[in-house]
Each structure stands twice: as C-alpha cells, then as structure tokens.
C-alpha cells in the first residue's frame, strides 16, 4: 500500500516498476535478518512490499534534526533507509557536523514527545550535542511506521534515489534530493519535462504567455514543471490544467518549497489540489511543514534538474527564476527566454538573460522545436527518458479543444482582423499598445470622447484584440 489512493501508479501503469529488483536492498550487503527484532524492519519475503516498508524510514530520516538535502543524500547513497535507521538506533550513525550558515528545521514527527524535544535546538551550526537531541535520542522515541502511516493514508508518497519511481532526470543530478515526497502520479514525470518559470509580480501579458505555454505544452504531451508560485508559475500550471481533461494531455508537475500537503501560497490552494489530482506535486520538505526561505532556491534546483528545457517567461532583475535558469545552465540543461518589452521592469531580468545568451521562444511550438519534438509531422520522438509506450498517443490528438496558439501554424491573418477595423478602433488599438494603458491615456491619445473610447475598447475586448486587467488595457496578440 504505497500511497493509499486510487491513483497508485506503480504496479499498474509502470512497466519498469515492480518487477525490477529493489535496489535499495542491494548495496552493502547489510543484514536484514535482525532488523525486525529491533525496529520491525524487514523480515518480509515479498520484495515489492519491502520497498514500501522502507518508506517510513526514508521519511523518518528526512524528519531528523539537521537532515537537510545534502545530508540525506549522503546517507541514502551509503545505506538503505532501514539500515540507516538501524544504525542511528545503534548509535553507529550520528548527526554529521553540518556546514555553517544553515538554520536547522526542527524535528517534527507530529508526536507529543517529539515536539517537546525541539526546545533546545538552535542554529544548525552549533555542535550536535548542544543543538538539541541527538539522532539516536530522537529515533528511539519514534515509531516511524505509525508516524508515516498517517501521511501515507493522506495520499503522500515518498521516494528516494535508488527507487525505481525516483525521477530519472534527478538520478545523476549533482545536487540530487535525497528524499522526495509526492502526491499525485509520479508517472507524469516520465514524459519530457519543460519548466516554465517566472516572476510572481507578472504582467497580464506575461501571465497569458505562461498560460498558453502551459496549455499548449501539456496538450502536446509535455509535463509542465513549475513552482506553483503566484504570477507566471501559477499561470503555467493553470494553463496545463486547462487541458487536463484531454486524454492525450500530460498533467503538470508542481515543485513545492513547503510540504506537499501545505499549499503555499494559500491563494493557490485550489490550483495545488488540481495539480495533485491531474499531475504530481513534489517536495523534499517534510509533509506538514511551511516553507523556509532557503527552501525556495533549493526547490528551484529541482525544477531545473527535472526539466529537459527551462523557459523563463518574465523575471525582474535578480528574480528567483534566474536562480532556476542558473541551476539549469550549470547542469547543461537548455534555457530559453520569452522576450519582453524593453521598458517593462517585469522583463528586466529575463531580457538580460536573453541578452546573455539563451535563445528566445515565442510559444509552445518554439519550445517543441527546441526539444526536437516535431509535433505537426507526427514523427514524434520525445527525449527517450522513459521506455516508449504507455502514455504516448498520436500527436494529432494532442491539440486542445480550445483554439491553439496562432504562431504554431504561422497563420497569415496576423493583423488582418486589426486591418478590418474602423478608423476609431484602429486609433484606440494604437493608443493602447503593448504596455498596460489606462482609459484616461487612451482618451488623451486619441482625442475621442470618454464614452466613444470606452465603447470601442469594449468592442475590441469582445473581439479579443485587447484585454483588460483591473483598469488597465493591453493589446492581445492578433489572432
């Protein structure tokens, strides 16, 4: 019983799932025989069950004080979760002296005893003995299986490097997450992944670009990876979810800085649950935990690591999405940028990035071209990260029911609708321009009366040539 949800992906959907030997049982030749006596680990003959039996221990390791991504990764590289836990109980595996400068998160097993044990812990940089309870003390007080059972019942899964459902793209990542908690269906990550990231303080245009990218990429069978933040991230997810009912579409992957059951930002709680039900939410943060500030850049590295290509839609100078882009570049993952208006401060960082090298993309087709996926020809060959089969279907069927982006077909009517407009409408369209514009500016620029200008804007909005956000008008692409 891995996730306790109806959508359990592994046994049914994944051809590479259960029939492979569980690698976490293999290395080091540790003896599992005595584990059951001491901590109730192992002793079961069924190997696939054993992987799930290890899950509580993997999760419990992540809950230890000072067990950050780096420490976890090191532990799980050397031992299986059960082994590591047993070693901790024996006192053979102690808390490593941490790198300085990090603030530790408190051990949180949600147990009364455990919560009381937090009090003494201070900054992570303090020696283990002064920083609070040792791992052994904490481990002795906790029953990982009972603790984890609650989370598992809530549909939360855990995976770690070495497990077959661990995202393939992260296996060779230089900073791979030791443990990943997830909700939803990890199978979506087997599709080619494209990260769509950008600023939280996005313009209307940026959000609509992100929405269209998310929608059209998802419809083309791409897994849209993003951080569920306000602005661009959320718009990309919303776009991907808008075609989720399409059988051919791939659900999005959301990478969180908080626990997978702690929607953040709270305004995106609804979106969050939709991602869980249609795609997958991932986080290396323990369930139930709010996000620490340092988790966000750490989360960004996972977004970059998962993606075959990172698209930056809009970023202020020094924005967090540039961290994602940097992480991608450091991993040799391709980065593309959606160009923005030169005067727009929301595009200052992304335009700088564009200037520095990565090429531009205008729409989903450009992204697919960059990935080498030829959508229209039907000769689809996504990056072979996964064995072909299960989720693949005909690209022709991947078109969303809604009208697709114009650029895809290079339609010739670009501007033709604008050309058929009357004199007043043309003047208003020119006055609005591509930057957010107020009615008062339109009136001043055109010299029309307030009534005429606002009537014309309403008409243009109805035809989709301009769009409105609060009191601001902006031209939409001519399609």
């Amino acid at each position, binding site marked *: 019983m891995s996730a306790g949800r109806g959508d359990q992906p592994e046994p049914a959907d994944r051809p590479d799932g259960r029939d492979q030997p569980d690698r976490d049982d293999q290395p080091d030749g540790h003896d599992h025989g005595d584990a059951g006596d001491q901590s109730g680990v192992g002793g079961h003959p069924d190997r696939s069950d054993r992987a799930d039996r290890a899950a509580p221990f993997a999760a419990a390791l992540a809950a230890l004080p000072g067990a950050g991504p780096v420490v976890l990764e090191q532990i799980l590289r050397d031992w299986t979760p059960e082994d590591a836990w047993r070693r901790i109980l024996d006192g053979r595996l102690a808390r490593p002296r941490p790198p300085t400068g990090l603030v530790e998160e408190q051990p949180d097993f949600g147990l009364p005893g455990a919560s009381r044990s937090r009090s003494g812990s201070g900054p992570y940089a303090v020696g283990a003995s002064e920083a609070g309870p040792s791992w052994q003390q904490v481990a002795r007080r906790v029953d990982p299986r009972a603790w984890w059972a609650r989370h598992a019942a809530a549909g939360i899964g855990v995976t770690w490097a070495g497990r077959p459902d661990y995202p393939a793209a992260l296996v060779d990542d230089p900073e791979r997450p030791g443990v990943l908690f997830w909700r939803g269906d990890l199978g979506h990550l087997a599709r080619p992944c494209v990260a769509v990231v950008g*600023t*939280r*303080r*996005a*313009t*209307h245009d*940026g959000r609509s670009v992100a929405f269209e990218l998310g929608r059209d990429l998802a419809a083309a069978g791409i897994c849209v990876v993003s951080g569920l933040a*306000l602005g661009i991230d959320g718009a990309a997810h919303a776009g991907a979810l808008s075609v989720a009912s399409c059988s051919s579409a791939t659900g999005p992957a959301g990478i969180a800085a908080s626990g997978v059951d702690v929607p953040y930002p709270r305004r995106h709680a609804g979106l969050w649950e939709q991602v869980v039900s249609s795609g997958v939410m991932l986080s290396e943060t323990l369930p139930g935990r709010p996000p620490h500030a340092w988790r966000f850049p750490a989360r960004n590295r996972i977004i970059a690591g998962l993606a075959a290509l990172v698209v930056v839609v*809009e970023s202020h100078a020094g924005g967090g999405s540039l961290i994602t882009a940097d992480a991608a570049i450091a991993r040799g993952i391709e980065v593309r940028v959606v160009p923005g208006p030169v*005067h*727009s*401060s*929301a595009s200052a960082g992304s335009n700088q990035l564009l200037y520095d090298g990565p090429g531009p993309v205008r729409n989903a087709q450009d992204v697919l071209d960059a990935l080498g996926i030829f959508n229209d020809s039907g000769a689809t060959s996504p990056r072979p990260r996964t064995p072909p089969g299960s989720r693949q279907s005909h690209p022709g069927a991947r078109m969303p029911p809604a009208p697709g982006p114009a650029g895809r077909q290079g339609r010739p009517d670009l501007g033709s609708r604008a050309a058929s407009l009357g004199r007043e409408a043309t003047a208003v369209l020119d006055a609005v321009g591509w*930057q*957010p*514009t*107020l*009615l*008062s*500016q339109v*009136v*001043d*620029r055109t*010299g029309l*009366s*307030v*009534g*005429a*200008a*606002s*009537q014309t804007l*309403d008409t243009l909005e109805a035809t989709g040539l301009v769009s409105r*956000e*609060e*009191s*601001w008008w*902006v031209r939409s692409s001519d399609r």
Partner: protein
Amino acid sequence: VLASVPSAILIGVHGTPISVEVHVSPGIPSFTVVGLPDASCREARDRVRAAMLSSGLQWPQRRVTVNLAPTGVRKSGAGLDLPIAVALLAADGQLRVEAVAGFAFIGELGLDGSIRGVPGVLPLVDAVRAARVVVPARCAREAALVRPDSVRAAPSLRSLVAIVRGEEGWPRLDLDPPGVAADAAGPDLSDVRGQALGRLAVEVAAAGGHHLLLVGPPGAGKTMLAERVPGLLPPLELKQAIEVTRIHSAAGVALPPGILIRRPPMRAPHHSASPVALIGGGSTLMRPGELSCAHHGVLFLDELGEFPSDVLDTLRQPLEEGHVLVCRARASVLFPARVLLVAAMNACPCGREGGPGSCRCRDAARFRYAARVSGPLLDRFDLRVMVDRPDVAELLAVEQTDRPMVESTEVVARRVAAARSLAAGRGMSCNAALPSDRLDEVAPLQPAARRLLETRLRQGRLSARGLHRVRRVARTLADLVGREGPLTLDDVCSALALRADVFGAEDGTR
C-alpha cells in the same frame, strides 16, 4: 446687589442662550463662579478684575457670586468675560441696572480692558435673547450678518462703560464689506494638461454631487484635479452661505474679508487627522470637524490610503445622511455635513507607474493598502477614475499648436450650473441624491443602454447597487450636454468608464 445680563455660549455650531447673574453682598471679599464653568471660564475672574482696574473701575471688596444659568450646561471659553464684567458693575452699582437692560453682551476681555473677538459670534448673536447685542468691534460685521439692526460694538470696557453711562454715543459700525474683494477664484481647470478623463470626472462630480476617487501614481495630477472642483461648483445661495459661515465661525476658522463665505469651501485635512478632528466633537467644546467645515463644499482627502481605516469608516454614515450626530456623555450635537467627497490615492504603496507587473510592492503590502479603504466606503464613490501621468508630448505641447483648446473653469462651471438647474427642476439638490425609486422616471434607458447594463450585470461586473449609481452618473452626463429624456448608450458607457475597477474591486465588492 443683583444683576442679570443675557449672553450665549456655543454648543456645536449653534448658540445657546445663557443668563449671567451676579450677586454682590457684604461679607469677606470673594469671587465665585458657579454653573458648570470650565477652566477657561473660571479664569474669567482674573481677567475681569484686571480689566476693570485697568479701565479705572472699582473691584468690589465684597462677596461676589457669579451664576451662569442654566446651570446644567457646561460653559466654556472666554466669551462670557464681558457679560460677567457688565453684570458685576451693575450689581455693584457702578452702572445702572436699567441702563443695561435690553442688551446682551459677548466678548473676551484683555487685561488692559480691551474687548477681544471670540469664535462663533455669528451663531452666538443668533441665539441671544435680547433686543440689542454688544459684540467685540472686530466681530461686528460678522454679527451684523444675522442681526444687522441690533448689533452694537465697543472697542474697550472703558468706552463701553462711558456709553452706558450716557457720556458717549455708540460708535458707528462700518458694516460694508471692504472693497467687495471677490473670494479667490481658485486654480483654473485650463492649467491641467491632458487628463480628459479626469477632467470629465471632476465636471461630473461637480454637476451631480457624485463623490470622486482619483487613483494614480504620484505626479499624475490627482491633487491638481481635485483642487479645481470647488471652482466648478456654483456659488452658495445666501442661506447656504450663512450656514457655512456659521460653521466656520464656530470652528474658529478664519473668515474671508467679506465675512460671508460665498464660494463653496474646500477642506483638505492631512491624513494624520483623528476621527474627532474629522467628524467633530471634543471633550468640553463640541467643535465642528473638517467634515462640517466642508459643508456645501468639497472635502478633499489626499493620500486616502494613508488615512487609518477606522478614521475613514467614520465618514460612511455622514456621507449618506448629510449630517453627523456626535454624541458624548454630556451632550449630543448635530453637525451639518453635506459634502462632496473627493479623494486621491496611489494604486499601491510604491505608487506603481506602469500598470500591473511594474509594482515593487509585496503582494501582502498591496492588499493591506487597498484594504484600508473598506468596500462600503469605496462603494460611496460614484466616480472612480484611474489617472496616469500625462504623456510627455502632452506636457510640452504649446497652447497654439497641436493641442486642442482646453476648457477653462468658467466654461465648465457654466455647464455645471445648467446641469444643476436641470436637477433642481426635478426637485433634487443634485443627481447623486436621486432616490432609487425615481430612477425609472428620471433616468430611463434607451434600449441599447439597457442591453449594455444587462450584459454587465450578467457578467457580474456590475452589482444592483452599482447599477443605480451608474444610472445617476449617466443622468448627470446627459444633463451636462443639456439632453433630457432617456439615457443613451454613450451616457451609460461613459458612466461605466467613470466607475473604474480599482483594487480589483468590481463595483465595490472585493
């Protein structure tokens, strides 16, 4: 031994008649003031004594009791100095009681015996129960506004005593306003470059009495537009002018040289104003607040988002009722408060310039800022207009060249007056006061206009209450072009455009 002199004290913006009774009897010399005097009133004893001695009069070395009747009302201020002195002189026999009969007295005494002005002379004179009233010389013109024939003035206690004793005559009062200096007209609308929408908004606000909210970045000209609203309003009628002058007099606001306030006043309190300063009140003296000082004029709240939200919310009920009832344990006072509210604020704390996405504020800060203006208050604004800095070309354009002639305050004010007279013809002070049950009669809709409103309602972009407000504004727009009859699509469209979606508030509902 006993003398009684009528006078008045100020409660709110109205005077209350008071009788000052002085009893002088043999005994150990003493001076007691009874009848709920406050500190400034009790100090009258020392001022009166010094003034009498300076004026060559005698301080009675007897037991003196001053009673301020009715005793249940708290007395405040120095305006009772003069009646106390006169009553004391009469009771002491230095003046004949019959000689002061029929006179009321109002005035503060200086230590040298001079008679000084007090605030609120206009309402005080209105209230006193006496055939003639003596006021400080510099307040004579103000007093003459309400009782031109019965006002007398004296420069000092010494000359007043001489007049009462019959040694001198009353000095002639100079009641003609000095050189009928028209009240400053205020800044002109033709100074505003561009801003056609903002210009229309102030015109509609003035014509229909619709409250106006201007939202935009610093330097967009919000304050500039707001300051031009009073100039567009018609001059006050005599009754209104006296009402306004009475309030300003009571509040101690400096009156214009012509005393009578003929132009609609504009008050612009700073955003640090307390609720009491805005609404009126106070512990002893119930003083009218800025809201009442803007009665029949414009209350301009600049940087609306910086006002504490509890201060702003105190405005909600007075804006609806046109008056404010301030209640304290000792007294309740009704202050008039029929104002045109004009407010200006930034769209967010950083004053974003370029629309969505260019703002540097944290999301939470932006919501907090917008939340200062509560939904109900936002709903009071029939006109909500987003303005931005004018284009550079517009700023630099010279009058003669490519810029269309901009209308001056005079031209627009004429239209406003015409529109207001149309509204008055329907029996309303202004269109903003149009009751909703008369909307179908006064503001019927042409079919196209009705369809547009129906669409907006169905889209949820307009609420039922918003619908009423839009129709009122549309009525004003039609009145401004002098068109009676059903409202056109253009009227309704403009009215909707003047009700912008600020702070993501569709129609006042967040």
